[in-house]
Every structure is written in C-alpha cells, then in structure tokens.
C-alpha cells in the first residue's frame, strides 16, 4: 500500500519495536500455553506415548487405529448427531425468539434475554447436577410429571437407557447454547435499517417478504458467526457427558471430546488421544470452512 512506501525505514523499525513491546506479555502466554501445546499435540500424535516411558515413533499408526476403533467411530457418530441436531435448532429457535422479543417495550426484552442466558451463567456443573436430579429414575420430576399427565406409564431411566440418554443430553445442551445467539440476534435486528422496512411495508410487502428481502441479508453475517460458534460449542460438549453418563450406557453417549478425555486420563494413551484431537480440530476447520464458503457464495 502507498502508506507503507511513505513511511521511512526508521519509522517502520520504531513501530515494529513498539508493536512487539506491546504484544510481548500477551505473546508469552499465547505462544507458551496455546501455540506450543498445539504443535506438541500434532507431534505426539505420531508417537505411542504414555506416562513414565520414552515415546515410541509409530508414524500414522494412531490414525490408522483410530478409524478401526469401534468406540471412536461411535463417538464420532454421536458427535455428528449432536451437531446436526443442535446447530439448526439453536439457530432457528434463537432467531424466532429474538424476532419476537426484539420490539417489546421497556425492560421486557432484556428480561427475556437474561432468562435465556441464565443456564450459561449458572455454569455447566451446577446446571448438570440439577438436570441429573430432574432426570432421576426415582426422585426426578420428569417421571413424576410424565406419569401425572399420562404421557408415560412407568418410570423411565432416562440417562441409563440407550434410547433416551443422547436425547436428554442434547436437550440440556440446547438450553445452554441459545443464550449467546439470542443476544447476538437481538442486537443484529436492532441494527436493521428501519426506514427500509417501513418503505417496504408502505409498498405492500407482506411480513414474510419483509423478512426475507430486507432483514435476512442484513443479519446474515451474524447468522454465519452463530453457526460457527454453535458448531464449535456442540463439538466441545464435555461436562454434560462426563457428569451425567460418563459416556454410558455402553458407550452410547460417548462424544469425541469425552473419548479423548477417557483415552488420556483413564487409559493414559497420550499419543492416541492427541491423534483424536487432531482429527477433531480438522473436522471443525473443514466444517467452518464449508459454512463460510456457503455464506459467501449465496
């Protein structure tokens, strides 16, 4: 750029020194506790590595084993189910809620926003233990309400039954994931140019047309951001599973994230766990890339 050529060499040097001086404290933590472990993660994924023993180089051995490991493939399937269900539901639900609460008068809008954000703030552990109680076989309110209303005939062991466990986890995950998208959508909808909407209404556009032709293009960048963060969050679903089911019954609620933890801290197979981490990171990178491409091409 022309600004660069106008800047003298001395100035560039001074800016560079100052720039890195300001960056230094941050870079120490960033390089030391994010980038360095990332590089280590990739390197160790090619080794058979465990506690108190020298690492043994195994090439792509861990990766090959990974795709023959039934438990891993099951975990991969569960992760994909969680992402495929939760991402669209979160996006559509939060857009719907935001569009309804956005033009409420007074503090009502922010009351709703707060309530939908509550499960996020409450913290994953506190949220999980109370849901575990509500889902409980004998003392939980789900069974009580279900029986009282006649929806179920006898107590269901929600978290101990392969048929229901994953569904229960997705339900809790949904309550902890819509808070942020709602905040984002409300602010995006607030920023939509109101004069355009009014002009369209004067011209006789229906509400649906108004939405698709005027509002949707303006909130698309927000939608993309929400898609990406919800995908990442769903992939990372961990505390819920560790505290509710520990991957059971019979590995039916394992996710990749939980299986990494299990491999590393129960089986002490660090290299194998790292290989899973690399695969997970690649999957997220590819999905985010696809979402960006789709959004751009439209």
């Amino acid at each position, binding site marked *: 750029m022309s600004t660069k050529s106008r800047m003298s060499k001395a100035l560039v040097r001074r800016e560079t020194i100052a720039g890195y001086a300001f960056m230094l404290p941050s870079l120490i933590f960033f390089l030391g506790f994010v980038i360095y472990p990332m590089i280590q*993660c990739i390197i160790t994924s090619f080794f058979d590595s465990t506690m108190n023993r020298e690492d043994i180089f195994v090439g792509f051995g861990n990766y090959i084993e990974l795709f023959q490991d039934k438990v891993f493939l099951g975990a991969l399937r569960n992760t994909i189910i969680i992402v495929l269900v939760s991402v669209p539901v979160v996006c559509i639900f939060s857009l719907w809620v935001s569009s309804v609460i956005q033009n409420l008068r007074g503090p009502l809008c922010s009351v709703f926003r707060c309530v939908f954000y509550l499960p996020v703030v409450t913290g*994953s552990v*506190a949220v999980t233990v109370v849901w575990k109680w509500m889902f409980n076989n004998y003392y939980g309110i789900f069974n009580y309400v279900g029986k009282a209303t006649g929806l179920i005939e006898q107590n269901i062991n929600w978290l101990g039954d392969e048929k229901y466990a994953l569904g229960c986890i997705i339900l809790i995950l949904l309550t902890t994931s819509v808070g942020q998208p709602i905040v984002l959508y409300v602010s995006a909808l607030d920023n939509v140019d109101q004069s355009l909407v009014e002009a369209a209404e004067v011209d006789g556009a229906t509400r649906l047309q108004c939405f698709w032709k005027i509002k949707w293009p303006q909130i698309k960048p927000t939608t993309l951001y929400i898609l990406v963060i919800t995908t990442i969050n769903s992939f990372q679903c961990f505390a819920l599973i560790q505290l509710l089911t520990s991957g059971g019954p019979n590995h039916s609620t394992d996710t990749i994230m939980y299986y990494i933890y299990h491999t590393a801290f129960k089986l002490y197979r660090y290299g194998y766990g790292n290989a899973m981490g690399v695969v997970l990171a690649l999957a997220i990178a590819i999905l985010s890339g696809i979402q960006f491409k789709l959004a751009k091409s439209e």
Partner: protein
Amino acid sequence: MKSKTMGAKAYRIFSLIVITIIAIGFAFPLYWIITGSFKTSMAINAPSPQWWPQEWVSTNYEKLFSRQTAPLWELAIPFTKKVFAGPVVPAAVRWLINTVFMAVVSMFLTCFTAAMAGYALAKKRFIGRSVVFTLIVCAMALPKQVILIPLLREMSALKLYNTIWAVIFPIVGWPFGIFLIKQFAEGIPTEMMEAAKIDGANEWKTFVSVAYPMIKPGVGALAIFTFINSWNDYFMQLIMLSSTSNLTISLGIAKLQAENATDFGLIMAGAALAAVPIIIVFLAFQKYFTKGITMGAVKG
C-alpha cells in the same frame, strides 16, 4: 400507528405466550437448585415433588460446610519447601476462595495483556502484524480442549500441575481478548495519537492517556466476560487440579456428586453456592457483558 392485520397480531401474541412458557422452563433449573437446597431429605425423596418447600431447613448447607476441612490459604515460597498455611476452615469455603482468586487473577492478567496487544494490532504497523493476527484467528477457531494433553505435560514439567496457575495461564493465553480489544481500538482516531506524539508523549504515555480511555468499554466487557467464563471453565480445572484443598467450587460439586450421588439436597446446596455469586455478578454487569458478546461478533 400502522394497522396490523389480525393474523400478524394473533401470531405475535401466540409466540409471546409460547416463549414465556419456554422461558419459565429455562429459569426452572435454577429455581429447583435454590429451593432444593433448602428442602428436607424427606421432601426431596418424597414420591411427589414439593413445588414449593413446605419446610425450609439449612441442614444441607450445614452438611456442606462440615464435610471436609482445608486451610484457608497456603502460601508457598518459591524454590523452597516452606508453606504458610492459614486457619482450618470448611473445604467449601476454601473452594470459593480458590475460585474467586482464579477468576480475579485471570481477569486482571487477561485485560492487561489483551489491552496492550489489541491496541498494538489495531494501531501499530509493525512487520509480521498480519502473521500474528492470522495465527490468533486460527487459534480461536480451534477447540481449546484439543490441546489439553500437551498442556498437562507442559504444566507438569513447569511444576505447576495441581496449582491454580495451571488453570490461569491457559485462560490468559486464549486470544479472544486480543481480538475483542482490537475491534474497539480500531475506532481510535490516528490524529489523536499523532497529536499526543507531537506533544512529546512517548509510546507508553500515548497508550495510557490517549488509547486506554477509548478502549475502556472494551476492557470492561472483556473483564466481566473473562470473570464469568473462568468461573465456569470446568474442563481445565478438572484436568489440572487434584488435591482437596486446591479444588474450585465447580470441581467441588462434581466431587460431591461423585461421592454422594443421591443426596440431592447436599448437591443442590453446593450448586447454589457456585451459581448464585456468579449470577449476581452477571446481573450487576449485564450491560458490559452484552456489549462484549456483540462486539466480539462484529467482523467475525
């Protein structure tokens, strides 16, 4: 007023009713934690739930505070084996203190480092700037749990395993803060910085007196964001902390749950102890928090 069609109005009212019902569902777990923590064990184990506790008791909290004990603080002198321990208190109190310490230190360190780095990225034209920025954006897109195994080994090598610092440092390293502050700092007019320079201010002075006041709302948002997220960041805590006196409140409840799976009153008392302080903080600083979320998304 424009006249809306009957259909649109009916849709709005119907939606509002449905959303209100769902919102009650969202608030219910919290209600259940708090009321549950004051119920008698009879009420909790009764075949039909008490929607409102008939009898309020504090036995669950008494049990929570009498289970285990730990010293109030432990100050280790670096490079020696000397440890100064405080008076013995219930373990739950120590867990709260650990959590507050962790959240406050993470908050200050993150704000301090990110304010300077975000400012430099937005306003300094230094060599390698775009490389650093690309690295930051890429790192942000990756799930941070991927690095947990190498991080654990690194912390063991640094002799930080099972100390609160092993949780704090990765939080500070996470580059979201830099990204957030950069968004704010881009709004600083370059003329103002040049004017300060002409007046003879050095780099540091320009930052403190010109740039910092302008990015202050961003720093506020980042502070509350980091505080709440580190308070609730269960995963890193689970891996890095092990001994009873070093646990955080989240880990403490998880441990309670693992040890007494069906004493729901006790577990709810622990959950209330973890959740209520952070909810109060959230409600008090809600405005900054919302700003932090929306600013981080601009130009995502």
